[in-house]
């Protein structure tokens, strides 16, 4: 190669590098990147979405009623289990365990509740499509509250405060003094004896009891809708960028966190699933969180979507009352496809560090570093190819984790709702 040609090539290469978008970006954010950052900011969070099957979703009396129920340890077959047993406010409404533990142990990790009102799907496998319908399952689950629908009816009827609260919101309770029609315990999902009691009831009485039960879910939803994330350092950083306040930017996030943020929106591809102001798309993905040499025992969304379609409390069900037109997520749900196998709902990353581990649906990773290493490795799943190895350097693991800590922030929730009522 002649000298002049080498010179031309070298010059061309230099020009090419100098004018590549990455070089142009320097340490500043491009307009496109700022648009992306704004899309992740808490300021992009839309108002609370409607809850089509819950007319009391935003009623303050329902919030207060739900608040009391959420902390009530008599809610169930023992005097020892409340919603708050697993969803602990000082642990980001989680419990620090790999599996939830109440009367028994649950199948998967306890989910965070902050910002849950914005998710069209509930549970890791999305087997419920509203927060009110979700709240019902643990109440009847033998490993959680272990109660029965008839038991909850009598609990509300026999507690003067609950009874007043209930009847002022939903009208008169059934005549629970008639124990022949409304025995003290029984339901469709209990022990064989409890199921037999339920089967002996008239369908009209079953409907009345299930309606009261669904209404308890509605007030629990009203309470949980108030669990809303507030601005974290990341959000204040985005505000400083938008305000072009560079001094503020440097004070809010350190260099490592800014580098981690750049990785988050680009090379580490976190935004594929952790997008939007809650840093979740609330959809279902198989990210290979199981041994790679055999099919997963927990089939995730495959089972979830079947349960959803069979759920009598779903948006189109007889207890919903929602306009079918408002049930779009259910009407257009994807019910088949390899993508559903061992797929689990993307969790929000807000307060992911302060909530503490373990992480993933099965609590299989103790630390955020473990999670990052999992996505860096992107091992084959036998099922899907959503991920590719990231080849992160050691410093980049540190930067990403530092950024994730910038998503810790206070809740935008009335502090009185984070403590037992009356405290």
């Amino acid at each position, binding site marked *: 190669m002649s000298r002049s040609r080498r010179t031309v090539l070298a010059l*061309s290469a230099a020009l090419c590098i100098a004018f590549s978008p990455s070089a142009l970006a320097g340490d500043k954010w491009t307009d496109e990147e700022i648009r992306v950052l704004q899309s992740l900011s808490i300021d992009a969070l839309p108002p609370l979405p409607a809850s089509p099957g819950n007319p009391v979703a935003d009623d303050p009396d329902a919030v207060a009623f739900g608040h009391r129920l959420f902390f009530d340890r008599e809610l169930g077959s023992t005097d020892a289990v409340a919603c708050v047993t697993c969803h602990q406010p000082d642990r980001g409404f989680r419990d620090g365990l790999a599996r939830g533990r109440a009367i028994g142990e649950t199948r998967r990790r306890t989910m965070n509740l902050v910002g849950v009102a914005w998710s069209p799907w509930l549970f890791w496998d999305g087997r419920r499509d509203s927060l009110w319908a979700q709240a019902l399952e643990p109440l009847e689950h033998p490993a959680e509250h272990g109660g029965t629908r008839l038991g909850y009816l009598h609990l509300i009827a026999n507690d003067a405060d609950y009874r007043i609260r209930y009847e002022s919101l939903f009208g008169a309770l059934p005549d629970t003094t008639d124990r022949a029609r409304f025995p003290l315990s029984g339901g469709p999902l209990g022990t064989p004896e409890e199921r037999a009691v339920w089967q002996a009831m008239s369908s009209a009485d079953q409907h009345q009891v299930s309606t009261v039960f669904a209404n308890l879910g509605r007030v629990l939803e009203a309470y949980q809708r108030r669990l809303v994330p507030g601005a974290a350092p990341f959000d204040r950083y985005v505000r400083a960028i938008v305000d072009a306040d560079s001094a503020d930017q440097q004070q809010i996030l350190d260099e490592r966190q800014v580098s981690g943020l750049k990785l988050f929106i680009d090379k580490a591809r976190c935004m594929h699933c952790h997008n*939007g102001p809650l840093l979740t798309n*609330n959809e279902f993905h198989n990210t290979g969180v199981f041994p790679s040499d055999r099919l997963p025992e927990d089939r995730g969304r495959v089972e979830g979507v079947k349960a959803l379609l069979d759920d009598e409390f779903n948006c189109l069900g007889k207890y919903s009352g929602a306009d079918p037109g408002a049930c*779009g997520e259910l009407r257009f749900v994807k019910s088949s496809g390899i993508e559903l196998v061992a797929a689990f709902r993307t969790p929000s990353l807000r307060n992911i560090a302060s909530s503490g581990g373990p992480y993933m649906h099965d609590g299989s990773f103790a630390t955020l570093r473990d999670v990052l290493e999992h996505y860096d490795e992107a091992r084959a799943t036998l099922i899907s190819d959503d991920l590719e190895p990231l080849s992160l350097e050691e410093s980049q693991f540190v930067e990403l984790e530092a950024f994730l800590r910038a998503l810790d922030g206070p809740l935008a929730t009335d502090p009185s709702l984070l403590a037992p009522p009356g405290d």
Partner: protein
Amino acid sequence: MIDKTRVTDIRETGTRDVPRDETLCPSPIALQTAAIDRRHGKSAQESLFQASSAFFILALIGLLFVTDLRAADPDTATNRTSDNGHFVVVIESRVEPIPLNSLHAWVVSLNTADGTPVDDAAIDVDGGMPMHNHGLPTAPRITEALGDGKYLLEGVKFQMPGHWTVTFGIDADGTTDSVTFNLML
């Protein structure tokens, strides 16, 4: 087992579409090399060969350094002729810009190649992210014929930023064809 071959094929196909874009930077420089060579009295063929070599080398350099330009932007036209030329299909989202993580509806307009609206067609919908080898997160479908060749498509949702495709299979009085739209979110 996963079909790795299929994934690779899709990715390679994506790469084959790329050169024009990757040469955004080297291409003018390659031409410049050819111009310099012409001044040195080289033949057009030789210059072209050298320009091509420089083009190739710089494309490689471009690949190494210009990682932002991994793939060419696909053709995102919302007005397309179907694969076998039977129909012209236009898509219009009722929510603009097309949102992420939000269920929304489109109006799909179906016309024959000569512009006559086609009513009473059976249209099925499929799609996904070719680079990720997964489908749509929902099962959108035509829920209403609006008349004048227009159809309401409900249940559309995209849950990731990036390149999506949406394919319509059309059957109008026994004439079948399909058309694929690209979207960049």
